[in-house]
């Protein structure tokens, strides 16, 4: 059996797949956080709850309405987007122009409320969600077994990240978004409906998180607190990558997932600490993050 630093290759490779899988979620979530922050100047604490709502929406749609996984993959993010749009229109909007601290505390409160409600109706225990049949097998790659679902999850997440990047960089909508990030008042003068743009951005960020939630549902159990614990790691990702940098979000998300997996192989007790240790080191060496520009 091939060994790498005293660890069998098979074990290492499958841990790396898990690492990339987690990293894909980090990337999707920190991307959404970054897009929202860039435009709304709000650190969206509700992001973890959006992820949870996405997973629950898929779970409910499948178990009560018989929707397929593929349908959920489309519908659940839309549900989350609608929820996000309502929250932005009714609550968040009223805080623009005030100290940014209030936006942070409001979204924190919303996250707690959503998680509390889910806990009230569904309990804290996780609900299982079936992997779709077509993706349930594994492939023998010779040096490891690759679970199809994980490969699918990594591929779609990265595809979505890439798509987001393309939209922001190369479409007129993306150009407006970037312009609004630079100077939203000037953009308004040009006749662009900036308030609508803000709502759409928040909804879009929420949809990304909701999508991640659906993809996560078959692997992790669907539970009310699934997003709360994830979001703190995502904050570390965001600090490492630098908010507002799309490349930063994707690269540092995947990197952190992989490093976490390596830590799990070589020194298991440190695995939970790794993202935060890396964050502390980055803050010391490059306070703006690896890809961050000036504040």
């Amino acid at each position: 059996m091939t060994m790498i630093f005293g660890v069998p290759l098979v074990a290492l490779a499958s841990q790396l797949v898990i690492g990339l899988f987690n990293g894909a979620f980090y990337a999707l979530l920190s991307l959404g956080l970054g897009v929202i922050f860039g435009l709304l100047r709000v650190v969206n604490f509700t992001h973890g709850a959006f992820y949870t709502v996405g997973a629950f929406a898929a779970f409910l749609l499948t178990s009560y309405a018989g929707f397929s996984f593929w349908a959920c993959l489309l519908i659940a993010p839309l549900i989350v987007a609608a929820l996000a749009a309502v929250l932005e229109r009714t609550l968040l909007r009223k805080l623009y122009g005030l100290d940014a601290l209030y936006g942070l505390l409001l979204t924190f409160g919303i996250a707690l409320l959503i998680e509390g409600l889910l806990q009230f109706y569904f309990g804290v225990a996780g609900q299982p969600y079936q992997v779709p049949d077509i993706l349930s097998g594994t492939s023998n790659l010779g040096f490891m077994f690759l679970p199809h679902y994980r490969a699918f999850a990594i591929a779609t997440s990265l595809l979505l990240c890439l798509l987001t990047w393309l939209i922001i960089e190369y479409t007129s909508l993306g150009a407006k978004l970037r312009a609004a990030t630079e100077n939203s008042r000037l953009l308004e003068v040009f006749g662009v409906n900036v308030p609508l743009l803000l709502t759409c951005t928040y909804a879009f960020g929420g949809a990304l998180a909701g999508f991640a939630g659906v993809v996560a549902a078959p692997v992790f159990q669907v539970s009310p607190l699934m997003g709360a614990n994830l979001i703190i790691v995502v904050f570390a990702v965001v600090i490492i990558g630098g908010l507002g940098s799309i490349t930063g979000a994707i690269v540092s998300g995947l990197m952190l997932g992989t490093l976490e997996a390596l830590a799990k192989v070589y020194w298991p007790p440190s695995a939970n600490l790794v993202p935060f240790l890396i964050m502390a080191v980055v803050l010391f060496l490059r306070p703006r993050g690896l890809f961050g520009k000036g504040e």
Partner: protein
Amino acid sequence: MVSASLSLPLQRRRNLNIILLLAGLALLAVAPLFLYPVFLMKLLCFGLFASALNLVLGYGGMVAFGHATFFGGAAYVTAHALKEWGFGAGSGLLIGVAFALVTGFLMGIIAIRRQGFYFAMTTLALSQMAYFAFFQAPFTHAEDGIQRVPRPDFLGLVSLADNMSLYYFVVAVFLIGMAVIWRVIHSPFGASLTAIRENEQRALSLGYHTNRYKLTVFVISAALSGLAGSLKVLVFPIATLTDVAWQMSGEVILMTLLGGVGTFLGPVIGAALVLTIQNYMASTAVPVTIFIGLAFIICVMLFRKGIVGEIIAVLPSSWLNGSERQKAGHQ
């Protein structure tokens, strides 16, 4: 700063403060006759905790999202010292404070490198790291926590065994903590801190080492949070993961926010409110996070100044001192 002959409004203000102080002391003295002393002690611990956070949040203008680490961490250390090393009440409190002080310094030097949101996210992430470290450290017994912590005498002289004598001990420690906070706020250091909060660039250009000020206030706040956490171990003989989890950091922010960020007594009143409602909620099946979340939303949307802040805003301005008048005016 205050000369012997005070101006009339300032004199009146002094008198008002003294009346408030005496009324507060009298209230603390007789409260256990009417209310359950253990609840009151819990209230004082969290009141001190929220007031300690307020130093950073209200007076330093930094949203610290990781104070549970100091509160719960000190609780763990004190519990371990009392149970395994046979420390007395006084030395037990001191070792908890020392732990919080050192942890606060470590978290502070990393976190103050960034401002605003990044500061909030960094403190949150670092405290989550501390959470995992506590979870894995053998002395905390992970999910079981440290249970059945003994309640030793204070200096070998004063027995704290019954709840009434412990109550007055807790009141004394609470008052010492609040006196330290009062001193910090009303010192030249506190004034510089306010200046940094209002405009860090300007303070920097005036030659203030702003990071040194921010780090100092962060460490003081951490140490006092630790005092509150250690004190709680004397009241409730357990130390668990609940006290170091991020939800606790959120709860204490809520207490401060509800009572009034940047007001001296606001955090204590906020703590009383949150704990009272939690007490009622405990008997229902509704998760307490629903209430905490709703309270955050309502407070941020409807009364951002907090209870005490809103009261100050409606008081006649001759009752207020300069900074309060400024607070009532804008924000």
